[in-house]
């Protein structure tokens, strides 16, 4: 029996994707669908095997000749995602030094229990259902400079499930598992794709309902629709040009991803304090490729490929919601505009601005400023009037 036949026979006794050595540097493994994959590593050539004298010399010479270790890993060690390739986050996640900065791999790291918790959610049936949990440290002053510390986010915990032979990805079974996510019971908000709130699901009673109702019936925590920016291009810009701004030059990143168990393939299930699937998706996030014919008439697209984005969307919801600046109260705006004016001009300018605010519907009937975010907002301009009843 040849080495290959022996190795193929061994494949029957090991789980899928387990590599069985045929000879040094050559291994074979079986995919889920039964096909076998042969991998040929350079150490299969005796003159390149680093364990031989000649091979060690070859390794030293060749390895040193590559401009980056990532490239060596990709070309020779068969690590397809080592350089990031066309991946939009590849320049950070494909760079071992920057990866260390943004991804927390310390097995003993856990979020401070005083930090705020927020979450993003993406519903899927045949596609993955994803829930992403983030921790936001409370505002604090830097003890050395006395300045306010910049806002930071720690993405730490995820739920990721898609339909498989053993998991039907139904709402009820997903909710049971999601409810086991630690700290989510105290989440300030959970933002979800607005489409799950639309009454688009037909029922046997006639009136359509929405997917969120199914979650509510199964005791899911309250969720609200994401109303922020949905552009992929902007989302990538937020991360690369804001949250991870200047990290190559020594700045501290403001967006951290906690992952102690990165993987080359999806890891379905609940990960209470890790994000292997988010990292997997981020490594694969690519821009849409256009054909040469399309490029004749259009600019190159910067949109992301709509694939494997079931945790990228929740991340967008979290960043997009946190990013929405709190509305500045009108009195502060007006005070800023009349600041420095003389005693005569100041009050006049103030009254003019107050009138403009009133005309814009930002003042109450009694002249007081409306609160920018009241739980119940009644717009008097559009209503039927205080003496009229709605028909």
């Amino acid at each position, binding site marked *: 029996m040849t080495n290959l036949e022996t190795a193929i026979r061994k494949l029957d006794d090991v789980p899928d994707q387990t590599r069985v050595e045929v000879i040094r540097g050559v291994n074979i493994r079986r995919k889920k669908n039964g096909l076998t994959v042969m991998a040929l590593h350079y150490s299969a050539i005796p003159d390149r095997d680093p364990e031989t004298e000649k091979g060690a010399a070859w390794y030293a010479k060749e390895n040193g000749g590559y401009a980056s270790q990532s490239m060596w890993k990709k070309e020779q060690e068969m690590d397809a995602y080592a350089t990031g390739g066309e991946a939009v986050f590849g320049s950070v996640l494909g760079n071992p030094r920057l990866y260390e900065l943004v991804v927390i791999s310390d097995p003993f790291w856990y979020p401070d229990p005083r930090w705020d918790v927020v979450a993003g959610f993406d519903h899927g049936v045949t596609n993955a259902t994803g829930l992403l949990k983030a921790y936001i440290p409370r505002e604090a002053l830097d003890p050395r400079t006395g300045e306010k510390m910049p806002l930071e986010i720690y993405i730490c915990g995820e739920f990721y499930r898609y339909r498989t032979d053993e998991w039907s990805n139904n709402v009820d079974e997903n909710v049971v598992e999601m409810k086991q996510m630690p700290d989510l019971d105290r989440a300030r908000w959970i933002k979800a794709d607005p489409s799950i709130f639309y009454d688009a699901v037909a029922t046997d009673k006639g009136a359509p309902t929405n997917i969120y109702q199914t979650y509510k019936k199964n005791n899911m925590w309250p969720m609200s629709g994401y109303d922020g920016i949905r552009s992929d291009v902007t989302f990538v810009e937020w991360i690369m040009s804001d949250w991870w701004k200047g990290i190559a030059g020594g700045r501290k990143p403001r967006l951290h991803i906690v992952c102690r168990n990165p993987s080359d393939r999806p890891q379905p299930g609940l990960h209470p304090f890790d994000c292997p699937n988010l990292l997997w998706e981020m490594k694969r996030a690519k821009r849409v*490729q256009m054909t040469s014919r399309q490029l004749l008439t259009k600019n190159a697209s910067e949109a992301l490929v709509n694939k494997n984005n079931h945790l990228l969307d929740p991340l967008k919801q979290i960043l997009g919601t946190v990013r929405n600046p709190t509305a500045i109260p009108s009195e502060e705006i007006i005070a800023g505009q009349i600041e420095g004016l003389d005693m005569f001009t100041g009050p006049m300018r103030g009254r003019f601005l107050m009138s403009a605010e009133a005309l814009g519907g930002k003042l109450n009937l009694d002249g007081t400023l409306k609160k920018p975010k009241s739980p119940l907002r009644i717009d008097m301009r559009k209503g039927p009037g205080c003496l009229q009843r709605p028909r």
Partner: protein
Amino acid sequence: MQYTDAQLRQIHLAALAAHALEQQQEEFDRARRTDNKLSDTEKREQAEKIREATADTYTWLTRYTKTFNPHWKDHGWESPYRAFPSWPFVRPLCEYLEDDSERVKLIEKSRDMMATWTIAGYFTLQCQLVAEREVIVQTMTDEKGFEVISYAKHLYASQPQWLRDAFPLPKPLDKQPSSEFRVGTSVMHVIPSGIGKIRSYHPWGIFSDETAFQPEAEVAYDEARASGVRKIVLNSTANAGWYYDFTNDATMARA
């Protein structure tokens, strides 16, 4: 006996004509694969020799043909033509390709392993041995596909004369287009990579080289499977994308 000049000229011309006829007959015999000069025993021995040389890809590659390396001068070799390296992995690779229990062969490799040469060798031998074999080569660009065809042509031309005689070409190699290699009634040819290119073909084999770098390789693979190809070999160095996700089962439902 004295000959006149005219007689000598006639004798000389007759000798030349006889020689030309002899050459013509040899070519004709070679083309028809009928060497009348061999006895039955010699023919049996010759057939046995051919059978032994082409018994498997590894034997044929490492003992009966040669590779070509354009960097021969840099390596300090005497010639660009070198015996195919008998590296330990070449035998299991050949066995893997020859194993017919699976239609699809998936190969991941480090750079510069001569895997493309080996696979080209496997398909070249298949075209030599079996009539009416059609093998399609798909790579990133047509030019790179022509390179694979040139490997096949080179492997064929590097065989000893008696092997080449045993597997005659319908057309000399220098008269064959760079996109195809024909031997006997079999053919190995290049088609562009991408969606829909394989449709209307029903080849016996497909060699997709550097699959991870081919756009639309996923659809091309599905189309190849659908067209009933008996041997599909996908070979590539590492690159982020469908191929490595596919081989690692790192895929799930599409969004």
